[in-house]
């Protein structure tokens, strides 16, 4: 499907949530209101003409130093790809500085779990109902979110001891029936 047909299909299913669209060097990007993200994502995955089975990436962007930026501070770009149809799509969600949170997509795509943990770790975006929103790249005693524009690049933080992972292990064991 080409970009205009994609846009029409999504608009017809979610007229209120769609805020706008843009062309990113040949790939369609739709801006979506953050409350409607999960519904739009579900449509993208389940609708047979759209068939976006694969979540490629979740990119978190801090627009606070972007020249002439008038929107919210944080942006999240979700990149989707359809293997069956061959088209790509980007979905952009803007989040305000004081409450950067959005619903999780873990129930729809399995890799959203780790990708959202990375967005939380690096940018501080909270994902509501995420099963395990912990830091994934930085160590567990790290304070702050390094990819934010106000975090100085050479501010180093030492780690005193590796974390024991029993806190993550216990729920998993419980799922398997161990008490």
């Amino acid at each position, binding site marked *: 499907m080409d970009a205009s047909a994609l846009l029409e299909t999504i608009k017809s299913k979610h007229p209120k949530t769609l805020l706008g669209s843009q062309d*990113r060097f040949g790939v369609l990007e739709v801006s979506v209101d953050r409350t409607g993200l999960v519904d739009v994502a579900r449509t993208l995955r389940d609708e047979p003409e759209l068939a976006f089975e694969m979540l*490629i990436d979740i*990119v978190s*962007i801090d627009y606070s130093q972007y020249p002439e930026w008038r929107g919210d501070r944080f942006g999240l770009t979700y990149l989707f790809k359809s293997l069956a149809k061959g088209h790509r799509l980007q979905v952009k969600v803007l989040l305000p500085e004081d409450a950067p949170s959005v619903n999780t997509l873990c129930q729809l795509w399995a890799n959203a*779990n780790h990708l959202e943990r990375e967005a939380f770790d690096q940018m501080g975006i909270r994902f509501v109902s995420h099963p395990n929103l912990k830091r994934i790249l930085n160590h567990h005693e790290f304070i702050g979110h390094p990819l934010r524009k106000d975090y100085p690049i050479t501010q180093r933080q030492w780690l005193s001891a590796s974390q024991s992972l029993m806190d*993550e292990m216990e729920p998993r064991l419980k799922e398997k029936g161990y008490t």
Partner: protein
Amino acid sequence: MRTEPQAPFESSQGLNSPRPKDKRELVYVNIGPSHPATHGALRTFCALDGETIVAAVMEQGYLHRGFEKDCESHTFQQVIPYTDRLNYVSAMINNVGFCKAVERMLHLTIPDRAAYIRVVVSELNRIIDHQVCVAANLLDMGALTNFWYFFNAREKVYDILEKLCGARLTSSYTRIGGMARDVYPQFADEVKAVLKSVEQSLGDVLKLVEKNRIFLDRTRDVCPISKERAIAYGWTGPTLRASGVEYDLRKVEPYYHYEDFKFEVPVGTKGDIYDRIFVRLYEMEESIRIIHQALDKMPQGPVMSDDKRVALPPKQQTYGNIEGLMNHFKIIMHGICPEPGEIYDATEAANGELGFTIVSDGSKNPYRVKCRPPCFMNFAAFTELIEGSMVADAIIALGSINIIAGELDR
């Protein structure tokens, strides 16, 4: 996931007795982060019931070197050496991926000769990446000889890469707009000679491994993953193709004349470790075919675009007239300044779809660079892959999904 191992004999308190459901009777073991077979710094915290992994939790980030934050304080050209260290066993593919994204952002076409050189070095790097992956994987199984076969061939490829750009491993051979320098005169003949020794090493390894009883028992039907789960996890590359999905960016979204090359894409059936290893071995054969075709088709011409925004002028002009001097100065000091915008561009790296999201604000430094590493998605599925298997299977499964820590943690 493996079923419970069958007991070869009956015993009163052996494998046939009811399994304990008390978590205090499990043994908790860390595999990693300093472990010979973790291929990098990864940690898997396992709860073991005998040899079987009941539950596993992974931790990564032990090689998080701040690639993305570093990109924001360097110019576009200065990012290229950082991209080398992402997937360090096939460094030039990362260079090509990043430069391709920036060139698309600049609406720049590189000269044909540069495109063919990029294809040749990408495929050479794909070969050496698969060699490391399979060699390390077989090493974990105890087959050390294959490691030497592949590494000897690899040294010959390294000699060529070193003649091309000066470094064996971290090459930084591409530049935005083309290549850093042209290939040396005997390049085509030497590559063809090296490919013969690569084929020889591949043949030696296949002879040792293809019908080997131990190898088949250890890899067939071990840690399989279904097509649907692989797609849900965003797997791409050889691991996805091993599960039966024929998805290769070189065929689906071709770039750099890949649509003109005749090559097949090997696809597996079950998605077990056997399939993942053999998809890589057959991909090496296909890469050899592509390199032969690319070397034959390579045209003469410049290797760097003549677009004044990116190409350094020749030295006679830099020292000869003021326009050349200013052009050189502006490119070095003020950098390449693409128009403000956001782009995502992907290439088929050895591990899968390597993508770069670049946000530019019109200045010389990128505003945000995000690398989409293929092995991040592979690793996300790792607990699902190993729960229920034994420790030994988990070690080989980790090798089969080819985790390169530089790419995983960036």
